[in-house]
């Protein structure tokens, strides 16, 4: 039976071979049938649906598939790849990927494209024209297209040939289960084309997925590193005829431009997705007279500056350049992968020189440091970010305008003549000074020896933004089914950011208010040190004066007149007053030295205060009375000097008010009692009172109601007394307020602090 089958197949093959037009599919089937009858060997066969499985398993996500096609174009030495979408917001749309790479011959199509697991890229790891390291993964391209859409038209052509080739694939229709992969015939046709044309076009129909702007953006970012952030030059030229050398790589441009009906989708460009993250754009210029200048513009920092350079550049000629300046900090590269940005900087950073449209090597190459930026950064004579990776700049020289520049014979740089030295100096000055100005604006230390540097703390919102960026970076590449969760997390972070920013705005407003207050407190604090010395010195001096006075008085006694007596009495009174004040100052200084908090017994404290000021008040005819109920009333732990400060500030205000009032009643009353868990000191006087219209301002810093009058003993107020009282109350969880005075008084302040939690009743 088997022999009969073999004979039948042999006959069928012979019949086919005899035909004018060979039926390749029939040959393929007969060959497979024959091989299946081989009793001495078995052979692998591949199910046609395997392509589909490999497509999803090897490639996975739709944007990965498209990224791979872009990388294939890069590996094919394409200078540009254009990706056009049609009707992509839903499945079933179309996609055209068009590159101007080296293209494929028919042989390459057969041997590489149509061969699974080809070793082509392994054998050829470097592209033939520009010496590019292969960016795409091996043999993934065909699966990527199968992953993207149900049908593919592959059009490819190479330079030097008058025909290109077109292959049709219908993945879903033809590559089905049960069919052998090798039996599926994919029609190929030739088409005429100009000989100089080269490239590959992939027309993918009936897209399997819808494409969102976010997905497109992810594609963009995945291939960003393939593109330098520079304009490509008009021309490129071979370095030499040496077969082992490569042409200078003009770069690789990716253009993604989706169309949906009449709408134009946002164009994804290098400018938009990378260069917009620059900290600043630096423009340098030399005019006809050799005057150099540069301008720095930073939208991110809201900063612009221009500067003229003192040095004259008479050899360079007229010139302009641009450079994008990057600082690789999360706060300055938000919405973009910091890692990718740094990679971009490492790969493409530097300052390129073009002459007559051609790139002059090696300026701006990764290993090149013609401006000595890397050198100085390494030596830390430049502390600002100003290495090659921080700049993406290029300068274009022309033979017409910049005639003194010449290239070396080997085309490996410019002759380093005086014009070159001037160019070096000019570009270096522009870049370095621009970076320093930005650093100064950002508050960074510019040089190692800078003394007047104060680092700024990062705001919480900056840290939060970094967290948001990291979140986007980590989750952005994922396509998970838990989209809602991710959105929820994003919303939470956004809300947190809003709250943080509001808080920061309020904090900045408060900080401005506090700065002036703190400046005055600093002055007062430094006065405190002087007061300590002053107090002791005054005490000593007063003692001597009093002694002298006593002796003087004693000398008058034998013949003292009424006038003498009055004079001596006034002097004695004055000295007594000074003594009391000096004693009070010394006592305050002694108390203020204690840093311990303790429960303050208000009776003892107020009594001591009253005793200390008894003489002072007596000379003014002011009567001070106090009561404390209950007598054991104690505050929660606080500084003793704080209570003294409160009493003192209230007292001085009362004395001023009483003297302004010029009333017959000169009374100050201090009552301390307990109310609602607070020890409340009620301070009342018979002075001028507090007008209702200023009551709300009276606790503000620098608000004072006392103006200096020549006939007054007391001087103008500092405006801080009640502010200090208010701060003490706040610091101790208490309060201070103006209350309605009791009968017989015109002014009343209530100061309350929590009572000791050990107090009973």
């Amino acid at each position, binding site marked *: 039976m088997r022999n009969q089958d073999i004979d039948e197949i042999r006959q069928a093959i012979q019949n086919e071979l005899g035909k004018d037009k060979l039926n390749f599919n029939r040959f393929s089937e007969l060959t497979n049938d024959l091989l299946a009858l081989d009793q001495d060997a078995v052979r692998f066969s591949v199910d046609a649906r395997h392509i589909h499985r490999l497509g999803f398993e090897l490639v996975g996500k739709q944007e990965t598939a498209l990224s791979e096609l872009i990388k294939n174009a890069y590996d094919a030495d394409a200078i540009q790849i254009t990706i056009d979408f049609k009707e992509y917001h839903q499945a079933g749309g179309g996609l055209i990927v068009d590159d101007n790479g080296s293209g494929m011959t028919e042989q390459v199509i057969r041997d590489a494209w149509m061969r699974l697991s080809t070793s082509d890229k392994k054998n050829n790891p470097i592209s033939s024209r520009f010496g590019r390291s292969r960016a795409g993964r091996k043999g993934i391209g065909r699966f990527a297209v199968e992953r993207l859409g149900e049908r593919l038209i592959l059009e490819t052509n190479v330079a030097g040939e008058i025909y290109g080739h077109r292959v049709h694939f219908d993945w879903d229709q033809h590559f089905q289960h049960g069919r052998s992969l090798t039996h599926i015939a994919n029609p190929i046709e030739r088409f005429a084309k100009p000989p100089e044309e080269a490239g590959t076009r992939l027309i993918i129909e009936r897209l399997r997925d819808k494409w969102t702007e976010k997905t497109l953006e992810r594609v963009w970012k995945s291939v960003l590193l393939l593109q330098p952030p520079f304009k490509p030059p008009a021309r490129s030229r071979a370095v030499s005829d040496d077969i082992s050398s490569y042409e200078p790589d003009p770069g690789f441009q990716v253009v993604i431009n989706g169309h949906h009906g009449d709408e134009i989708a946002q164009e994804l460009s290098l400018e938009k997705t990378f260069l917009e993250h620059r900290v600043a754009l630096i423009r340098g210029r030399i005019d006809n007279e050799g005057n150099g200048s540069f301008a720095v513009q930073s939208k991110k920092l809201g900063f612009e500056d221009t500067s003229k350079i003192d040095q004259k550049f008479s050899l360079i000629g007229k010139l302009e350049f641009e450079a994008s300046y990057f600082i690789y900090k999360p706060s300055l590269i938000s919405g973009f992968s910091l890692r990718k940005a740094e990679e971009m900087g490492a790969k493409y950073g530097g300052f390129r020189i073009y002459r007559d449209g051609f790139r002059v090597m090696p300026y701006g190459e990764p290993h090149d440091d013609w401006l000595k930026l890397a050198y100085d950064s390494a030596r830390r004579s430049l502390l600002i970010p100003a290495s090659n990776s921080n700049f993406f700049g290029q300068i274009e020289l022309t033979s017409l305008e910049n005639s003194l520049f010449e290239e070396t014979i080997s085309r490996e740089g410019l002759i380093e003549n005086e014009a070159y030295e001037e160019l070096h100096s000019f570009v270096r000055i522009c870049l370095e000074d621009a970076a320093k100005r930005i650093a100064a604006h950002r508050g960074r230390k510019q040089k190692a020896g800078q003394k007047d540097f104060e680092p700024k703390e990062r705001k919480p919102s900056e840290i939060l933004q970094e967290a948001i960026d990291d979140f986007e970076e980590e989750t952005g590449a994922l396509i998970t089914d838990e989209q809602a969760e991710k959105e929820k997390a994003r919303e939470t972070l956004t809300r947190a950011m809003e709250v943080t920013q509001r808080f920061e705005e309020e904090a900045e407003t408060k900080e401005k208010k506090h700065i002036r207050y703190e400046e005055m407190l600093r002055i007062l604090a430094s006065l405190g040190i002087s007061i300590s010395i002053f107090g*002791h010195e005054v*005490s*000593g001096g007063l*003692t*001597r004066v*009093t*002694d*002298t006075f*006593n*002796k003087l008085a004693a000398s008058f006694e034998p013949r003292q007149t009424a006038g003498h007596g009055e004079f001596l009495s006034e002097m004695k009174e004055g000295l007594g007053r000074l*003594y009391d004040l000096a004693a009070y100052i*010394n006592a305050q200084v002694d108390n203020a030295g204690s840093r311990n908090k303790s*429960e*303050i*017994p*208000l*009776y*003892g*404290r107020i*009594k*001591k205060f009253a005793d200390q000021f008894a003489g002072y008040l007596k000379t003014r005819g002011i009567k001070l009375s106090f009561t*404390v109920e*209950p*007598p*054991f009333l*104690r505050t929660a732990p606080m500084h003793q000097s704080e209570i003294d400060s409160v009493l003192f500030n209230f007292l001085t205000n009362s004395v001023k008010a009483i003297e302004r009032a010029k009333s017959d009643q000169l009374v100050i009353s201090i009552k301390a009692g307990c109310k609602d868990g607070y020890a409340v000191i009620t301070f009342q006087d018979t002075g001028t009172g507090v007008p209702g219209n200023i009551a709300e301002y009276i606790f503000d810093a620098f608000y004072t109601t006392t103006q200096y009058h020549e006939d007054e003993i007391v001087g103008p107020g500092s405006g801080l007394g009640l502010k200090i009282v208010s701060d003490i109350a706040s610091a101790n969880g208490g309060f201070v307020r103006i209350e309605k005075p009791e009968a017989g008084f015109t002014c009343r302040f209530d100061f309350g602090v929590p009572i*000791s939690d*050990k*107090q*009973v*009743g």
Partner: protein
Amino acid sequence: MMYKGFFVDDSERDKGIGGNLSIAGKEGMEVEFIKPELPLVELAEKLLSDKPDLVALDYRLDEEREKEDAPNRYKAGPLAQYLRDNALDSTESDFPIILVSHEHKIKKYFEPDLTVHDLFDRHYTKQEIVKEPDRCRREILSLARGYKQLIGIWDKQDRLYLLVGLNEDDKAEIDQQPLRELNALKAPHQVIRNIFRYFIDRSGILLDLNNLLASLGISPDSKNLDKLLSVLNKNGITYTGIFGKGWERWWNYRLHRLGQELCSEHLGYLTAEQRVLCLNENFGLKLIPAKSKWTGRTDAMFAFACASCRQPTEMEFSVAAYEPLPHPGLIHPKRICWKCVQTGEYQNIYPRLSVHEDDLLVANKIEHGEIKGEG
């Protein structure tokens, strides 16, 4: 005799203050001002050679120096130490050394952790010398006189008893052992120091005015105090021993013996009202009984004056004050009345008072209202 003293101060401006210490009269004292323009040893030797009856030293002798290499680079302590060491060699050479300085320096000097303050018999602020010259003069004159008295009977066996004027009845009432030990000290300034500590500065054997009034239950506001003191003097209650003229004191146990005789009861068992009634009746006085600060009543059994407010205080309404140095039974421990504890007034006193830890529980209850007064 006319006593001779020296006041050493680097500030010429304070010369006049030192001059206030001089006392005119045959039994007076002339105090000479000296600037410390010599190195320490030379100055000390010069002072010693003049055989002073008193030396007053400013605390900081090194603050005012006329030139960079001026020799006064020392404070009062080392100078006093040198002078004291000399007295160990020669009893007759001993003399009172007092510290005279501005208030804040005195306070700093007498912080508890400093150990040199035993070098000085007394200390005065310049402020009090100016404000209370008579008292200060009286005291230092008494001090100088006391030294002379002691030195005069130094070799006598019971010199202490002679100095203070203890009789046989007194000896029976007082613990003798500490007194015998005082008797055995080697230098006059050591004996003087202890006389102040056990007789003059603390109540126990003797009483100051506040404690006298407390023992008698008398209000300090009473008008007839001079008459009372005169009566007590007549009855031998007034202390007339060494330093008696400088510091008014009264014999404690003699007072109580008198009280017992007059009132037929130990004073300690009588209320203030009863004590005053007894005194008024016996001596024709118009004394007012003291009121308890805690109860507000005059039926209190006062025992001493509060160390804080100096008012008559009952034992039951007081707490012990912490004292860093131990003391023999001769001295009554300091106590603080409950009122001063309640109001916190005792915290305003200098030298600082604090409650003994044995009474902290009670003190806390008073401070926080768990124990409340009636007055």
